[in-house]
């Protein structure tokens, strides 16, 4: 989980009972009454609703702000203060609406409490409508690519890679981010299209 937690329950538009996801943050203690402890973590559930991203792309295009790198791809990350720039803002999630925050781990799942980032997990919707992680899975969300197409002249691109991934930060990244706080060895990051989105 990020430093700032999102307490709102996530809403998944599709009326499904089961999802497959990827653990993005290490499970952390969410609440405890002294006897029972509830752990939770952020989970990538696949981008079921890309309209926000597309609308953002369209708005940027309208404003002439569509950026491309030398590769012809969009720069998928608009975070202020990319490495080398000023003003890092942690937990700014843009329109990445496929991250389910603070998903609780079902009771009697001690193994899941130690789930490492990147693990594939199975989510089920409880009677109360909340999602909870009930076990490991053998399927998880993969890459996510957006291709704008001009249907008038059939031109394509630039292609955007918005794949979510998570991994431990490297020594170099820890060093780069050091001015923004003491990041311990073992801190992980969530990446969009290979660009750092947030430190988790």
């Amino acid at each position: 989980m990020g430093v700032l937690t999102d307490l709102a329950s996530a809403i998944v538009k599709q009326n499904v009972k089961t999802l497959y996801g990827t653990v993005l943050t290490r499970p952390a203690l969410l609440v405890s009454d002294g006897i029972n402890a509830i752990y939770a973590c952020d989970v990538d559930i696949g981008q079921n609703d890309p309209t926000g991203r597309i609308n953002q792309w369209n708005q940027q295009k309208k404003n002439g702000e569509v950026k491309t790198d030398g590769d012809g791809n969009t720069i998928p990350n608009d975070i202020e203060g990319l490495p080398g720039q000023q003003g890092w803002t942690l937990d700014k999630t843009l329109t990445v609406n496929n991250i389910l925050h603070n998903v609780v781990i079902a009771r009697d799942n001690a193994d899941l409490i130690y789930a490492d980032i990147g693990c594939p997990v199975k989510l089920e919707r409880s009677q109360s409508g909340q999602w909870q992680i009930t076990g490991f899975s053998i399927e998880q969300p993969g890459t996510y690519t957006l291709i704008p197409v001009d249907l008038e002249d059939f031109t394509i691109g630039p292609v955007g890679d918005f794949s979510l991934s998570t991994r431990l930060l490297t020594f170099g990244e820890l060093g780069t981010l050091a001015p923004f706080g003491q990041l311990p060895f073992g801190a992980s990051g969530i990446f969009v299209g290979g660009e750092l989105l947030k430190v988790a």
Partner: protein
Amino acid sequence: MDSRWVPIPLDSKQDARVILHPTATFAEIRSGTAADGFDLTEFVSAGSHGMFDCSITLNWNMELFGDHQPRPNQLLEIQLYNNGSFSTVWIGIIESLNGLTLSRGERSMQLIARNRASTDIWRTTKRVTELFPQMTDITYIARKIALAVGLDEEEIWIPTGSIYTAHTNTQLADMSAWDMLSSLFLPLGWTPFIDTMGQLRAAGRSIAGVQPTILLTADRIKKVTGQKQRPPVTRVNLHWLDPVLKKSRQQGRKLADAIMTTGWFLPFLKKTIWFSADKTQRAEKTYMVIKQSANNLFVKVCSEKYKQKFQNEGEITLTNYAWGPTIGLLVGQWFAAHSSPDHVIVPPGGGDIPVIPTGRRVEAAFQLALMLILLSIGTGIYEIWGTPFDWIHARNTTVAFDENAAPWADNPTDVDSDFIMNEQHAQAVAVRELIYSSRASNKFSIQIVDDPRIEFGDILQFPDQSLMYVEDYTRTITRGSEATLEVRGFLIGVVKAPVVSEVQVPQAPVLDDGGIAGGEGGDQSGSEEPVVDNTASGGTTGVNVSGPVSLPTLPNAGTGNVVTVSAFDDLQAAIDAAQPGDTLLLEAGAVFTGNFTLPNKTTGTAGITIKSAGTLPAENVRVSPASAANFATIQSGNSQTALATDAGAHDYSLIGLKLGPNSGGFGDILTLGSGASDQDALSKVPQRILVDRCYFYGDPSTGQKRGIGLNSGHTTIKNCYIEDIFISGQDSQAIGGWNGPGPYYITNNYLEAASENILFGGADPQIANLIPSDITITKNHFSKKLAWMGAGYVVKNAFELKNGRRCLVRGNVFEYSWVDGQAGNLIVLTPRNQDGDAPWCTVEDVNIEYNLLRHAGGGFNLAGHDNVNPNPVTMKKIRIANNLVYDIDSDDFNGNGSLFTMTQGPIDQMAWDHNTFIQSNDITNMDHCQLTNYKVTNNLFVEGTFGWFTADHASGKDSLDAAAPGYVWTNNVVGGAGSVIYPTGTQKPDRATFDANFTDPENGDFSLVDNSVFGEGGSDGKDIGCDIAKLNTEIAGVV
């Protein structure tokens, strides 16, 4: 477009027949051999048919009773008068008979018939396929499904595809046959359909840049009868299972418990431990924790060991410590105790002295030992701990969306496919489906003067240049009615140039009217019939050669930085530092020495270009040693390759480089991909490589084993010059590959090598089921230095295919080959399971046309199967057309001087058509060869020594009858055949007369003189023999 037909003239009346077939099959009706037809035409008061159904109203008095009354499931044929005769225009299955009425003595009813794919066996019955291994051509799966629902091979008109199963053990289940075909065809960009003749076909779904198949003039368009629009699809979400599995580890934990009891009565005890209750959990680094040992405080009962045996199971073994032998020993002691005499002590003076007998002591010792033995029974409690892991499928999503759609117009559609091979393929499919789906929303309907050529998937062009995709039509077949056709489909837009994008939509090779695949631009490979150029071949139906279905995709475009690399810079460092899109400009004339590698850049998909600075030959101009004089040189300086790719490297362009020999001539100069076991999966194959205007050279004295090791995918080699590739005592190739999937495009190169100028196969692929495919070889000059004759350089041939399919060899010049390592043929096709571990190796679907072959000891050696490591695969689908072969001479080049040597095994579907063959000895040695579906048409041969022969048969027809039963032989000429008997119709002029038909054969001009007796003598009305004018155009500039 159905080319059997011509458009109906303007203002014509419709003339159609309706034939009832109570017992005939589709094939019998198509071939005109059905004898059960009953003409219903005179009873038809009204009727119409479309692509998929037919409705007819019948009126009769008493005639249609008994056997003549139509019944459900009988076949119905509709014939249409066109171009002077009636021909079958539609065949369907009667579904129902409705509305039977009787009025004033006349009966009437309505008959409904459907396309054969409308039946339950196609649409409703759920099916399960067999398991198909990885790398199965998915059109092969489609064929199996089509066969399962009743089609025969002749009714399946789909080309072989370029998409393969990427997962292990692919199986389709719980789907109808039609849904299966639709799923399989989607990644190929095809839509399945059963045509009006009952045959399975495929129509292309790629409409970006598509070209029209039929032009409609204004006078043929009667009216636009309807237009319907729905909100267009604005977004296609393609969900696909990533073929590359990811290993996911969980936290280390307890995996299993075990309780085991053992004792002196068991020598050892084993127990299998599963890492989960369902026995499927994989784990690694497992170990055993002993919660309670089977050994007790007094005795050590056994050893307790654990070992992991498989990914999902381990084994605990308890081995007892030699209690068995101990028991034996104690039994012996027991016996000894009872058999030992008591020891008696008699004191001096006599009297009683207490005595302990020796046997009792021994017995007591035994009883003590027995007690200890009984104590050696123990129960152990164990736990197995380890790190669970699984191989995880990632479900990827690739979204193509209309960038101009308003937010409120968002209209997504989801497409799932497990036949997507990689991200690039996914992008091509998503974009194609978006374009197709968005256009298909706008339904359009027009009424035109009947044009029977029109069929599903055709593209009609209107006078205003707009295009329409045909989905269905309705033809009125009421006799005497106006000959009109109502065509339904959707508007594509106006004619445009092909799509220009970062997404490389697979494109069909650009071919001329002898084309074997789709047209230029877009993915049209599914829209053509899988037959060879019938126009040029004079009819080779049944020899289904389709050739390559795609050219390689070029490296992705990109505009990055231009980095100059001087002779003093570290080239490898520059390559490593290059970002996708960058160009490394190597100093002209600089020499870079080392073993350089092209890494897999994972930070982007744009290409990296490495090229010489200075002046380069213009694009599409072949480089020469002279023009390459000032190129930057890359050379290894040792026996290793100079330049190689890392696993998964992609998108590299090598332009204008000079690449020199390795020390001692070992290995490859340029290694694209790996032929070794480190490249054992498609994911490791380098992709999208361009080698353009590069000069490769071996050492003039010691040579070089191989110029380019071609084991990559999507590779283009063009405008290059490769020379001095030879090595003493070993095979050598200018280009050689065996472990890359293709496609390959090798064009406009000079290729000089001693053994094989180009070789595919020759070693077992390390990737299971891999067959190099979609190989296009055009406009190359294959040659060998005559100075190599007798020098021990293992000269073999010019082009050899040991494992390959869908290959086009066109417009090349092959010259010089002689007896050395082989018999001196120029082209050798021979499927080889080379090392015995690749039984799937095949040679099939090879089209050899418009080539010049000369100056060799033999022409072709075609071996149908592997006689060394026999495999189940045999050669098939070979087409040899419009080639000129001369100076095949046993005197100058040794060898047998024969055109064809076919002495090993079966060959199916082979056509020789319109070739001019001049050789010194035999035409064909067919000894031990079995030919099926063999067609020889419109060729010029010379008899030579024995002409056509096989063992125990006379030359000519007798040998052909024996070796090729059922062969087709028409309009051939055999000069100098004398009294040799050939099939009826064969011209047999004497040799002088034969030669007099050529303009200047002494100087290689085999064009026909004006008054040649061979002129326009072909079965297709063209000149017999090779189309020399077209050949000259094809090979212009090659030499």
